[in-house]
Every structure is written in structure tokens, then in C-alpha cells.
């Protein structure tokens, strides 16, 4: 019996607004505990939420980018449960009236462009953070109230690989849109997975298990693969998959039941009476639409069309700032897409050693100038590497360095010939050996000639001229 997995993901995306979702309090990572709070964030008696429309703007940007149907009027609901990281005893969320329904996220996976259908995107607030000691647990409410969107896919992902590719695409999308900082270490995106399996060839969905706490993208693939294997083992053994929620333990590499079927949580959703219905106006939509950049999947397709390899195009579109750098360089060079891409992906990336492109030691027009000088034959590619290093050291432009140091490649055949004759004249013994049949000495002469020209000579040209002269 063969089984196939059916996976849906629920991803919480922190929106990069200046202040929190329902209180005029700054949000940010790493502040001293419980300093980014006010009566609302602390859930103090008498405090009320007031909605930050910057969170709406960010959510609308994402909704429009994925082609979702945007509700023109929706509301906030209270989702009730008791936990010390939830100061009000409920989370403000959206239950039966989400902001966005439908839409899809385009995913490039293994060189193929596909789309993953979404069920909904809704707004909600984040909870605080607990840290557990031996005898006490501590609550930090700095994260409480940070605006989130929950992006829910349809049950359409067919493998852990597909799920991981979708996550990368979503991560890339929200970074491109500027709605999320996308730092996974800081928990800006967090993922739950709904996993079921069914017999190959059938269409009905199997019993689904919700995997929570997949807090790192690194765990997604392992967590899903582990769960799929577990379910198949149960079914093959003649058992039944229980509808349950399991907690993924990334360290141990296994999941634990968290909440069983008999205790399915009833969140007692209640329309939040403190918050009037959320009305989305034409102006809200127009503003969000006007701010939409080129989406990363389309950008990747454009780079492929410009002749880039898939790996280079994929690399460059991973980070919006990196892709922007590439675009600026190509614009400055008036083309040269492939060599510019190669320079960014190889030399510049090596030079950055993990730092963001914002820290690039030379700006995009400067890189374009260097690549242009190589491509138009002003300098050799080999010399280009040296000039690249000198540009970084001095901050000067490539052509300024070339002119100042007289590094322009010698392209005048007459001049090359004169220099080549000088080399041959200085090495009569080797010339005789060559003419006696030792053809491998050509390399020696080329090396001598290049050395004499101070690297300004095209090796190809040097070789051609020397071969001709030696044949005389």
C-alpha cells in the first residue's frame, strides 16, 4: 500500500510596523524585558485596544500581492485561552471574517514555477514570551501585541520539500514587500503544519494532525517528514491516525502529543466589542496597490529571461536588496546581465562573507563600471579581480584606477608584435628549441610577454602573435 502526504501550512508573519497592533507602543526585538508595554499590552484592568492601521496597510499589501479577495468590511474576534504569555486571557484575532480569502503564492521549486493556493490571511496579535527556569517561569510581554498575519495555505502541498519551498517563497515575498523583516532567528516567521496522508489515487483527505512549534525553517522539512512517516507507520500497522495536536521538538527530532481529540480546544470566539468593524476603503486599497513592488517570483522569471542561470537568478532574488543591487548595476551598465550576476554571486558575495548587501564595499554603478571595462576589453578578467580589490581598498572607480596606473589592455597588434619580438630576441635558445619541435615552450613565451606588458596584454592575443612570429 502506498501513501501520499497532504500538507497545509499556517505561517505567522510579524508585520514590521513601528508600533504594536492595538496599542501605541513601539515594537522591536531585544529590548529589556517588559519595557515595550503599556496598560493595553499588560492587559491592565480598564485598558482598551485601538487598531493600528499601519498593520492593515501591511496586510493589504500582502493580500494584494497574492491576489486574494480582500474583505471590504471585517471584524476582530477574541480567541480565548488561558496562558501566562497571553495577558488578557484572549488573543485578538479574526475568526469567521478574515481580511483576505483565496489567492496564491508563486513558488520556484527545482527550476519550475508553481503556485500554492491560500485559504486565508487574517490579522491578529502576537503573544508574549515565557522563559522557564528551574523553579520559576518568567513572562516577557515585549512581543505581546506585535501585529501578525496568519497565512494559511489550502491542503495542497504534496511533500516536505514542497512545504519548505513554499516557506522560502513566502519568506522571500514578505521581505520583498517590506511587510516583514523576515529574521527567522528573531521569530519573525513561525510555522505550524497540518499533515495527513491518504492512499495514492484517492482524493479524500485523511485525518489531520497539527504540528506546532516548528519555530525554525530548518525544522520544517524534518518535522513534516517525521510526521508523515509516523502516520504511514500507524496506518500500515492497521491503526488509525488520531486527530490531535503535536508539539515538534527540534532538538530531539520528534513530536509529542499536546492536545488530544477528547480535549479539542474551544476558543469561544466572540466578536471583540472593543473594536468597531474594520472597514477597508478605496483609499486603503489604492495606497497598498501603489506601493506594490515587483514580486520575487516574477523578478526571478525576468532574470532568467535576461539569460541568467537559475542558480544565479535564485540567489539574487533571495534578498530584495540584493536583487535591487543587481538591477541598479545592470541599469548603470546598460546590460551585461550575466557577467554582472556572476560578479555579484561570486566575487561580491565572497567579499561580503555573510554580511548584507547594504554593506557592499562598492556600490552598484561602480561594479557596473568594472564589469564594463572587462567586457569591452579594456582590461582582462584576471586584472579585473585585482582592480576589484583595489577599488575596495581605495574607494576609487575602476576606470580611474586603470587610467592612473596605466593598466589599459594593449590591443594594438603592432605594439604587441614589437614586444613579442623583444621577448624572442631575448631568449634565442628557447626559440631554437621551439622551432626544433618543443611546442610546449609557447606557454613560456606567453608568460614572458605578459610579464613584460605588466598584465595589460590579452593572453589570447599574446599567444596568437607569438605563434605567428615563431612560425616565421
Amino acid at each position: 500500500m502506498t501513501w501520499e502526504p497532504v500538507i497545509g501550512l499556517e505561517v505567522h508573519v510579524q508585520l514590521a510596523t513601528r508600533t504594536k497592533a492595538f496599542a501605541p507602543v513601539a515594537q522591536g526585538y531585544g529590548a529589556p524585558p517588559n519595557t515595550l508595554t503599556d496598560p493595553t499590552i499588560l492587559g491592565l484592568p480598564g485598558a482598551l485596544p485601538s487598531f493600528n492601521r499601519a498593520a492593515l496597510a501591511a496586510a493589504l499589501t500582502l493580500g494584494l500581492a497574492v491576489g486574494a479577495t480582500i474583505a471590504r468590511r471585517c471584524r476582530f474576534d477574541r480567541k480565548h485561552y488561558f496562558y501566562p504569555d497571553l495577558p488578557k486571557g484572549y488573543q485578538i484575532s479574526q475568526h469567521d471574517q478574515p481580511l483576505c480569502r483565496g489567492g496564491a503564492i508563486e513558488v520556484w521549486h527545482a527550476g519550475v514555477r508553481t503556485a500554492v493556493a491560500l485559504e486565508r490571511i487574517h490579522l491578529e496579535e502576537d503573544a508574549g514570551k515565557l522563559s522557564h527556569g528551574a523553579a520559576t517561569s518568567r513572562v516577557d510581554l515585549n512581543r505581546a501585541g506585535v501585529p501578525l498575519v496568519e497565512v494559511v495555505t489550502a491542503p495542497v502541498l504534496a511533500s516536505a520539500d514542497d512545504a519548505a519551498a513554499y516557506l522560502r517563497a513566502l519568506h522571500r515575498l514578505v521581505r520583498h514587500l517590506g511587510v516583514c523583516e523576515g529574521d527567522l532567528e528573531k521569530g519573525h516567521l513561525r510555522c505550524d503544519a497540518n499533515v495527513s496522508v491518504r492512499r495514492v489515487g484517492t482524493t479524500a483527505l485523511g485525518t489531520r494532525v497539527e504540528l506546532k512549534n516548528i519555530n525554525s525553517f530548518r525544522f520544517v522539512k524534518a518535522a513534516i517528514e517525521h510526521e508523515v512517516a509516523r502516520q504511514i507507520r500507524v496506518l500500515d500497522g492497521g491503526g488509525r491516525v488520531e486527530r490531535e495536536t503535536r508539539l515538534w521538538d527540534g532538538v530531539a527530532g520528534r513530536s509529542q502529543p499536546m492536545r488530544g481529540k477528547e480535549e479539542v480546544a474551544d476558543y469561544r470566539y466572540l466578536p471583540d466589542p472593543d473594536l468597531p468593524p474594520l472597514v477597508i476603503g478605496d483609499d486603503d486599497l489604492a495606497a497598498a496597490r501603489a506601493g506594490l513592488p515587483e514580486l520575487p517570483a516574477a523578478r526571478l522569471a525576468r532574470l532568467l529571461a535576461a539569460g541568467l542561470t537559475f542558480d544565479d537568478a535564485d540567489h539574487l532574488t533571495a534578498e530584495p536588496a540584493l536583487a535591487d543591487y543587481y538591477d541598479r548595476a545592470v541599469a548603470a551598465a546598460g546590460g551585461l546581465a550575466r557577467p554582472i550576476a556572476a560578479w555579484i554571486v561570486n566575487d561580491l558575495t565572497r567579499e561580503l562573507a555573510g554580511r548584507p548587501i547594504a554593506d557592499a564595499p562598492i556600490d552598484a554603478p561602480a561594479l557596473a563600471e568594472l564589469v564594463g571595462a572587462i567586457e569591452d576589453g579594456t582590461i582582462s578578467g584576471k586584472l579585473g579581480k585585482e582592480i576589484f580589490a583595489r577599488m575596495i581598498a581605495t574607494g576609487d572607480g575602476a576606470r580611474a584606477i586603470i587610467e592612473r596606473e596605466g593598466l589599459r589592455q594593449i590591443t594594438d597588434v603592432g605594439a604587441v608584435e614589437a614586444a613579442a619580438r623583444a621577448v624572442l630576441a631575448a631568449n634565442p635558445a628557447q626559440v631554437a628549441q621551439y622551432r626544433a619541435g618543443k611546442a610546449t615552450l609557447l606557454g613560456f613565451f606567453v608568460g614572458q610577454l605578459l610579464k613584460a606588458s605588466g598584465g595589460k596584454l590579452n593572453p589570447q592575443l599574446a599567444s596568437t602573435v607569438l605563434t605567428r612570429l615563431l612560425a616565421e
Partner: protein
Amino acid sequence: MDDLLARSAIALAAEVRAGRVSAREVVDAYLARLALTEPAIHAYLAVDADGARAAAAAVDAAIARGDEPGPLAGVPLAVKDLIVTRGLATTAASRILDGWIPPYDATAVARLRAAGAIVVGKTNCDEFGMGSTNEASAFGPTANPWHLGRVAGGSSGGSAAALAAGSAALALGTDTGGSIRQPAALCGVVGMKPTYGRVSRWGAIAYASSLDQIGPMAMTVADAAVTLAVIAGVDPRDPTSIDAPPPPLAPPTVGDLRGLRVGLAREYRPADLDPEVAGAVDRAAAALAAAGAELVEVGLPHTRYALPAYYVIAPAEAASNLARYDGIRFGPRPPADDLDQLYARARAVGFGPEVVRRIMIGTFVTRVDHRAAYYDQAQRARALVRDDFDRAFTEVDAILAPVAPHAAFARGELHTPLSMYLADVFTLACNLAGLPGLALPCGATVDGRPLGVQLLGRPLDEATLCRLGVALEAAVGPARRAPWPPPGGAP
């Protein structure tokens, strides 16, 4: 001293502003009265004598400098303990908040302080506003200053009793189903429940968010009107507050009521209505007619659904609002083996029986398998009640109605929850519909207990209620302080 206690808040502020009496003298007079009456009345859960004297000194200093001291300069103000006050213990009359000192002021309190009012203390109430007698206070009930063996009403019973006893010149209450108007009627003072959204709820400890409203309680309609003008207005911290022009700061004056139509609803005149309560409504109707208003009979046919709808919606919201009291940050923390046990024990110790009852009802009616039959149905009933009023207000400018089914009753008399809930029958429809309501004294029972009536108005039309209210006040006589010692029995 008695001279100062006899003045309205507006008159007191005028004296203080003119420099004829200092805010400090006013506050001292009220604190002296408070010291005298409080042992028997228990209107206050906390008295801030030092803070009040310091605030009074600040008002006096402002006047000495020639600064504008505000329209309520030097007026001693009692604040219901369901409203947070910066630095002054606020408990909602619940053990679960015992010892909590709020780090912030409710918007209404901040606006009153800015207007020169002096907070003298926090008044007793039913726990989290859930009750109609103040017997549900975790810290003991408030006595009715007119008869110490009788209840002050509730839930804003402490505020009403403080006014009647003369230990405050002005008070704030909150009204979720009649909690300002009913104790005002039982204690013989003026109480106004403003239009929902008229006054910011920022700092009002939530009982039922879609029904709660802070409002003024006072000795005169004019005092209530001026206080409303001070506290009203949109607040960015309360998105349900309404951005509408504030009511006028100038007090309403007695005038001709010709052109105004006042409705009398059949549904508010059940056959078994207490004859003395009915008599008060009749007296008020006659007085309004004599002043020129036209009396019109109106129908509010869905009134019978109001009470059951209220007792689904209010507990549903209460169960949600009170979820934050979990023993982690407030209240007692009994020893427990695990988190769930901590929650259960902290809440069992911290909440009184009426609060527990409403949390359980509210949890029940919002359960996923009950919600459609209870909560959703109640919301439909609520819409019908609101529609009734919308229709009626196409015919009339205000509706005259009884407040409570009875004058102040004996402590312990409403001994079942249901009999307690039924005491709200005339007041809670106003909250369901979000309308303004003004309760004011209208005579007394033969044994000297105050009787009140209420006027219900169109949304944001508190001004018409005040216009009718001052006329009625002029006709039937203003609110009076209870004599001391009280006539109904020595303390």
C-alpha cells in the same frame, strides 16, 4: 460647613473660582462629613484625604497665580471603584484586584482632574459592576443614607450613597444595565447614563464592553450636564468613543417645553407595577405636561426580550473580559501544583459568587455548540430592541419611564439571582440600544424612601434629556442630602 455641603457642584466651583472660598476649605468640609457618615454608610472603599488636600492646594495655587482652574475647580469628586485612578487603589470591589494600584488614570478621571475636580476617594460597588444592591461587593455593602437597613442600589451604589450622604459633591458611576440610574433613584440623586461612546471607556474596568458607559452622578441635572460636557468626547484610546461635538458646557436652564414630545411606553407600565413607582412616573408626566411638553403613548413591543438578551450578552462579554484575572499578575495566588490548578484556585478565591455565576453563564452561552442558540440569538433580540427605540424616536423626543421596580428595599430582600436580575427590567434596554438615560428624583414613598424616574433619549441627545430634567427638577424639587443622623434608623 453645612453651607458648603448644600451647594451644587457648579455653585461650589463658582465660589472657588471667585476666590470666595478655597478649594482646601471645600475639601476639608467634605472630608469632615465623610468621616462622620462613612462608618455607617460604607460608600467608599478607599479615601485619599492627603491626595485630595494636595489637589485642592494645587487648585488654590493656580487661582492665586491667576491660572484658569477649570469649570469644576475644587469640587470633591467620588469615583466608582470600577474606574481606574492613577496611584489610588482600584479594586472593582473584588478580592482579585485587592492591592492593585493603577499606573494610569481613566480618561474621564483625567479630564475631571484637568477641570479642577478633586478626587476624594473610590466608591463601593457590586463586584465588577455585577449586581443591583452593592451586596455583591467583596468588601461589604453600602447602606442607603435614607435608611441604613436598606440597600443603596447598584452597582454604583457607593457613588449614589456618597452624594446622598454629603460626602461628595459629584460622582462618577458606570452603567451597564442601569448601574448609574438605579442607585441614583434609590438614593434620591441624579444619575446620567450617556450615549454609548459619548464618554471614553479607557480606564473603565470592563464588565460588558458593548454596554458599559461611564456617566456622571450629581445632586442636580445641571451638575450632571456640566460633568458630562467635561468628560465627553472622542478618545484615541477608545475606538468605540464617538467623534461628535461635545454637549454644551453651559448648564441647562429651565424653560418652556412646548414642541417637545415625551413618550410613555405601554411596556414600561405593567399591571403589577409598584403603585408608588407608578405614582412617581405619573407625577413626572404631569409636571412635564404642565411645562408644555406633549405626552404621547408609544410602543416598544420587543421590550420583553431585553432582559433575557441582556443576561446572555452581558455575561458572555464578562466571561471574556474577566479572563485576564488569572492569578498571574493580580490578586491572590494560592499554592497550586500546576498552571491549570493555579488558574482555578486563584479565580475561585478571587471572585465572588455573582461574578462566578456570570462567568459560568457567559462561558456556557459562547461555547461553540451553544453560541448559535444563545449568543447569536441574543444579538438578534438586541437588534429588535434597538429598532423599537428607533421607531419610537421618530414619534417622540424622549421616553419617560420608571427606573427600578421598587424604592430602596431591605438588604437581603432580593435573595435569588433571578429576582436580582429582574430589578434591571426597566433600565437595561437603554444599554442594549446604546441610548442616553437620565434618572432623577421624583418624590418619595410614604415612608420617606426616594423615588426616581428616568428619561431615555435619542443617541447623542443628552441635551434634550437635560432640558426636560431641569424642568422636572424645578417642578418636583431638587435632590436633597439625607438628613444626618438618618431618619430610618440611627447608625
